[in-house]
């Protein structure tokens, strides 16, 4: 039950993108097409889960004073793994995402979960939390990228959806579109989850 709570927390209540609004650089930058959104989400989920497990296992060994540099090294190691893996097996995706794969190392979500959660609980709960947060991040940026791709290019996962007469809103796949879609989605999320005023 506790595990399920930890898992759901990241997906909805404390969704990193829409509720906590952290780690948004990559969420805005790579979301020009739905495929990129999913790939980025999976890359981050991998780094987040692996580093949460390792940090949770090492939580009694790492001295409190130098904990942040220790966390950073753990995160950097797994980021390097993802970086080399993507470069080798998905070169075209890697080309599009540019420096945002290596930049997972400074993504606030990973460090925030390490500091706030993984360093305090056992590896099982840390895994549940990391998977939840990773999935929460993935669905959020996939949604953003689907909206941007559909409006900006008229396609979804590369397939044409809009009819022949559709003029793509090029602005949506340019930087301003990312900020505006993000703002509207955060606003919608606030509206949905707002507690009724008594």
């Amino acid at each position, binding site marked *: 039950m506790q595990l399920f709570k930890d898992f759901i927390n990241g997906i909805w209540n404390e969704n990193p993108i829409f509720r906590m*609004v*952290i*780690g*948004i*650089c*990559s969420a*805005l*930058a790579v979301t020009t097409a739905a495929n990129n959104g999913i790939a980025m989400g999976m890359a981050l989920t991998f780094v987040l889960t692996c580093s949460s497990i390792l940090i949770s296992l090492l939580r009694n060994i790492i001295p409190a004073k130098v904990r*942040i*540099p220790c966390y*950073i*090294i753990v995160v*950097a*190691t797994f*980021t*390097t793994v993802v*970086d*080399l893996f993507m470069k080798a097996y998905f070169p075209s995706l890697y080309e599009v995402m540019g*420096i945002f794969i*290596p*930049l997972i*190392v*400074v*993504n*606030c979500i990973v*460090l925030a979960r390490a500091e706030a959660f993984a360093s305090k609980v056992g590896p099982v709960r840390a895994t549940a939390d990391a998977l939840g947060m990773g999935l929460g991040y993935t669905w959020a940026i996939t949604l953003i990228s689907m909206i941007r791709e559909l409006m900006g290019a008229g396609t979804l996962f590369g397939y044409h959806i809009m009819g022949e007469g559709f003029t793509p809103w090029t*602005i949506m796949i*340019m*930087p*301003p*579109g*990312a*900020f*505006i879609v*993000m*703002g*509207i989605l*955060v*606003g*919608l999320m*606030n*509206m949905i989850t*707002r507690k009724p005023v008594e």
Partner: protein
Amino acid sequence: MAKELFFIIIGSIFVNNFVFSRFLGNCPFLGVSNKTETAIGMGIATTFVLTMTAVAAYFIQNYVLAPFGLEPFLQIVSFILVIASLVQLVEMVILKVSPALYNAFGIFLPLITTNCIVMAVALLIPMNNYNLIKSIALGLGAGLGFTLALALMSGIREDLEFADVPEALRGPAIVFITAGLLSLIFLGFTGLVPLA
């Protein structure tokens, strides 16, 4: 050479502003753009660290990583460690040299380690094969662009506090939409300098 440097600096301040068109450093951009005073303090501290990081990244890349063939797998780890220790060093030096300055922007320094602009500048230098002077220009330009973005945003946010924003959009949502409009304005600079 002078022309190229000018292009790098102007390019990273206006045309490819790190916040508005490259989406880097958005977390501190949202976090500290409440008040103009703190925003400018953060901007200056970041510019300082960025310029020093550019120099450090250049030397590490060309004198340690590349000659020993460590580049593919140690680049991320070594850059992030250098940035973290550099920030710590700057903090210690400022505390010793000028406590007044430390009080002014000391609290921002630990935050800079996780600012993605710093890591991005370090990674962009080997990617573009910049020499030392160009690296410094990139660091400086990125810092000034970040400061400009923060200063603009904080000015707008100070006024937004008195505006009648729909309830659901209060907080980060309206900041994103404002940033979108600012980003639209920055698109107007496209073509100001030829692409590198």
